[in-house]
Structure formats: C-alpha cells, structure tokens
C-alpha cells in the first residue's frame, strides 16, 4: 500500500540502519589505534583500521644515527619483544659489515630471543584474557612473565629494554649459574602451561566466543600475505626459523605448530603451542651451547657499510620480521625499512571483521597478534 503524496511533499527516507562507530583510541578494546566501523544493528558491515597514533618516524631517525646508535631506538616499537626486533637488524648489519659471530653468542642469542618470545606471548595472552573478560588469564601470565623478565634481567641488566643484541654478537656474557636457573624456569613453565590449557583453552565460555569467529581461509591467508601465528592457524606451514634458519636454529630440535581451523580460537592457540616449542628450543640450546668462549666480535669504531643492501628476516612473536638496510659507504645507513608482522596482519582486519558481530570484535582483533606500536613504527 503506497500513499501518493503530491510532488514536492514526499519525505525523503533517511537510511538510519547503518551507523558509524569509532572504536578507539580511548577504548578498552582498541589499544593504540582507531577502528572506524560501520554497523548494522549488531553486525559489522565494514571496518577501516586507522593506525598511526604511535608513528614515531623510526625509519627517518635511523638515517641520522650510526649502526650502533640505532640499537636503542629500534627496539622501542616492541619493548616486550626487544630481542626479536633487534635480531634482523643485527643480522643485516652483520651481512653489510661482513662480521662473523662467535658460536657461543649464536646460542645465547637464540636463547634470549626464545625467552623474549615467551615474555611477549604471555603479555599478549594476558591482554587477550582481559579482552574476553577472563581476569584469571590476565593475572597468571602477568605473574609468570615476571619470572622470564627476571631471567632476561640477569642476562642483560634491563627489565624490558634489553638492547642485548649488537652487531657482532651480544653485549655481555650470561651470568654464572644462569643455565641452571633457566632450566628450572623452563621446567616450571611447562607444567604451568598445562594449567593454562585447563583454565583457558578448555574453557567452554572462551570456546563459544572464539570458535568460528573471524575465519580466515588458507587461500586468503596466503593472498593477504599474513604472517606468524595468523598464517599458521590457517594451515600454512611456514616458520622462518624452519624455512630460512638463521644462526643455530638449524641444529635445534623443534617443530612448527600448524592448526587448520583459521578461526580466533586457533589463532589464539598457536602462540601458546609456540611457547611450548620455545621451552624445547631453550632446553636444547642449553644442552648444545659451548660452555665457554667469546660472545662478541669486536667492531671497529664507527663501522662503515659498503655500497650494498641487505634484507634479513626472523620469526618474531608476531611473525616474520624483516629489516631492509641500504648502505652507501657511510657510518649511517642510507635507508632502513622495518617490515613488521603486525603491519602485515593489519590488512586482514577489514576482511575478518566484515559480517562479524560487534561483540566479537575484541576476540578477532587481538587474536591477530597485533601490536599497534610496532605496526606504526
């Protein structure tokens, strides 16, 4: 039934179904970024991530500092994973300056980076717990994280910003009886992870919220160029530590953890399984590590790179992390490009959130293993 109104009197119908919603930067479920979402009732129609709130111009700053001065500020994007973000930088600079790293330093590097991966993943897990309203899962990982921080503090002297890796090795040797402490911690932590499994991953409420939320198929994961746990949760067997082993990962005994589901639950589970693998790697590295020897190749003061470029990548807590350094025979790099896992995973957020319920947004968003400060650099 239509009522005919004379021309000029028809009321224009305003479409008020679609509403624009700003989530962040001040929002408990956003972190350091903004998500501009269009919602239809409870369903997300489109999502436009707006990062850049912590864009600090690291790449520009790196052009004004020499290869050693670049270390402290380059680790700031992920201070709780600082070893892993310095790793590709050190590898690339070693390529450019043609430095050989002592054998013992390689093992210590691997250990430090695995310990740091646990620190990162536990922080991530704690925030994931609080995003889903699971306060126990905030307190437990935060508590266990401090034990790893203690270990790294004993190694490097700082709580989170270690600046432990330098081109040519590591800054200082590990303290006495470190190996014993490390082994005790790893043994404790493996037991503890089983409890996490019971309270968090087998929790029916968590399963209900995350299973089936934000499914990323294998083909899309490849096409969108995702990386790290997001990629492995979608059934792609890719880990830089296995595929392109750097330092001593080749000789260590571990496996790549791959899940097939591709939903938020799988994405949240892969880092947990990675932590178990990290424990294996640390234990193996402790066994195979040379018991003495130098840990650092001396560099000339103000080293100069050749007229060359280097691209090296490692597997960080958030996926493959690459550094592209162009040098032009000066003491400062000509250009440093940091290709971070968070930034590469950001791209699939619009695809995952489309058609999802608004309440699932935190579950999907944080399962992407996304750290906004790193993505903005």
């Amino acid at each position, binding site marked *: 039934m239509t009522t005919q109104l004379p021309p000029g009197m028809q009321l224009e119908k305003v479409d008020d179904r679609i509403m624009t919603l700003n989530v962040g930067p001040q929002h408990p479920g956003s*972190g*350091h970024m903004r998500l501009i979402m269009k919602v239809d009732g409870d369903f997300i129609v489109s999502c436009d991530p707006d990062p850049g*709130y912590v864009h600090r111009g*690291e790449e520009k700053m790196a052009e004004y500092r020499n290869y050693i001065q670049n270390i402290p500020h380059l680790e700031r994007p*992920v201070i709780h994973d600082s070893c892993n973000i310095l790793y590709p930088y050190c590898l690339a600079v070693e390529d450019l300056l043609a430095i050989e790293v002592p054998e013992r330093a390689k093992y210590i590097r691997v250990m430090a980076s695995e310990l740091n991966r646990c620190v990162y993943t536990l*922080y991530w897990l704690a925030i994931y717990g609080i995003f889903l309203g699971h306060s126990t899962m905030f307190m437990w990982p935060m*508590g266990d994280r401090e034990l790893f921080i203690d270990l790294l503090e004993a190694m490097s002297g700082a709580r989170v*910003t270690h600046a432990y890796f330098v081109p040519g090795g590591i800054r200082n040797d590990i303290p006495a009886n470190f190996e014993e402490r490390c082994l005790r911690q790893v043994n404790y932590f493996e037991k503890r992870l089983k409890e996490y499994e019971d309270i968090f991953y087998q929790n029916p409420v968590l399963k209900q919220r995350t299973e089936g939320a934000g499914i990323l198929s294998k083909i899309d994961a490849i096409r969108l160029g995702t990386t790290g746990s997001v990629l492995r949760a979608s059934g792609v067997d890719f880990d830089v530590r296995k595929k392109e082993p750097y330092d001593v990962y080749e000789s260590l005994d571990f496996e790549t953890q791959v899940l097939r589901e591709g939903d938020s639950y799988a994405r949240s589970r892969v880092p947990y399984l990675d932590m178990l693998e990290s424990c294996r790697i640390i234990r193996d590295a402790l066994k195979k590590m040379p018991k003495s020897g130098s840990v650092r190749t001396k560099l000339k003061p103000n080293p100069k790179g050749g007229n060359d470029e280097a691209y090296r990548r490692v597997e960080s807590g958030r996926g493959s992390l690459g550094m592209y350094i162009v040098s032009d025979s000066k003491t400062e790099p000509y250009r440093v490009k940091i290709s971070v896992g968070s930034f590469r995973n950001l791209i699939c957020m619009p695809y995952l959130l489309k058609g999802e319920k608004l309440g699932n947004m935190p579950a999907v968003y944080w399962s992407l293993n996304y750290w906004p400060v790193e993505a903005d650099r």
Partner: protein
Amino acid sequence: MLKELITPNAANVFVGKLGDILIRAVGKPLEYAIDWGRLWSLWPVHIETACCSVEFGAASGPRFDVERFGIIEAFGSLRQCDLVVVQGTITRKMAPRLRMVYDQMPDPKYVIAMGACAITGGLYFDSYNVLPGIDGVIPVDVYIPGCPPRPETLIQGCILLQEKIKRMKVR
C-alpha cells in the same frame, strides 16, 4: 548584647565572620575527608599512547599490584575517571585526542606523565612526529622518568600524586 551588635549595617560582617569560623571548624575536616576519599580510588583512563603501557600492565599484574595503593586498573568509561596516566610518546596524531579525553573528564582530574617521552620527547627528541613533552597539551601533576619506568617507579609516582592530593585545597 548580641542583638545590639547585629545592626543591619554590621550583618554582612557578622555573616562573613561566622563563615570563617565555620570553615575553620568544619571545612578543614571536610577537606581532609574529601581528599582522603579521592586519594584511595584513583581511576586511570584507558588511554595507551605508546610502549610504556607494557610496564603499566605489569604494574597492575600480581607482582607489583598497584591496586594496593588505590590505583584501580584502567577499565571503564572516561566519564568516571579522574586520572590520566600518559603512557609514553605523544605523537602529533594522538595529541588532539589526548586533549579531547582530558576535556571530557570530570573535575578533579590529575595527570601523570610516565616515561621520558612524555616528559621531554626522550629518545625521540628529533623525530618529526613526536611532541617534545606533553606540557603543551595538558597540565601535568607528577613526572615519572625512565624509559620505560620500572613498575616500582610508577608506584612511587602514584604515591607522590597521593601526597599531592592530600595537601590539595578542595575547590
């Protein structure tokens, strides 16, 4: 005798004096009570600006447990908050948002600048997108140095803020 004193002309003076006596008698304890109330329930806004938020998270974790000191974890709406902990670098994109958040909060409100970046720009003193400190954006009560500050330092800063609140005049 009192009746003779309160002439219409002197009434103003008398009321003023009475007010003074009242403030002396009631105001001081009342002020103390109000400050005491504000002191032990500081609600920080959930605005993370940079990497210091990691240490803020650690401070509310079980080992440091900042809740002991009446700083409650950063959750909830900013309309009910009275503390901004500026957790690190303020970029040019974030600065207007930070001011907006600060303006929306009800009085009284306090600001803690956490980390070297929030104080002077810190490590990023020569970056093109970072403000040299947040003093130009919002007024700061307590500065906590460090890059990032350890949770103990953060707790000390919070205690300093509480000392300050204790002595504040209630408006």
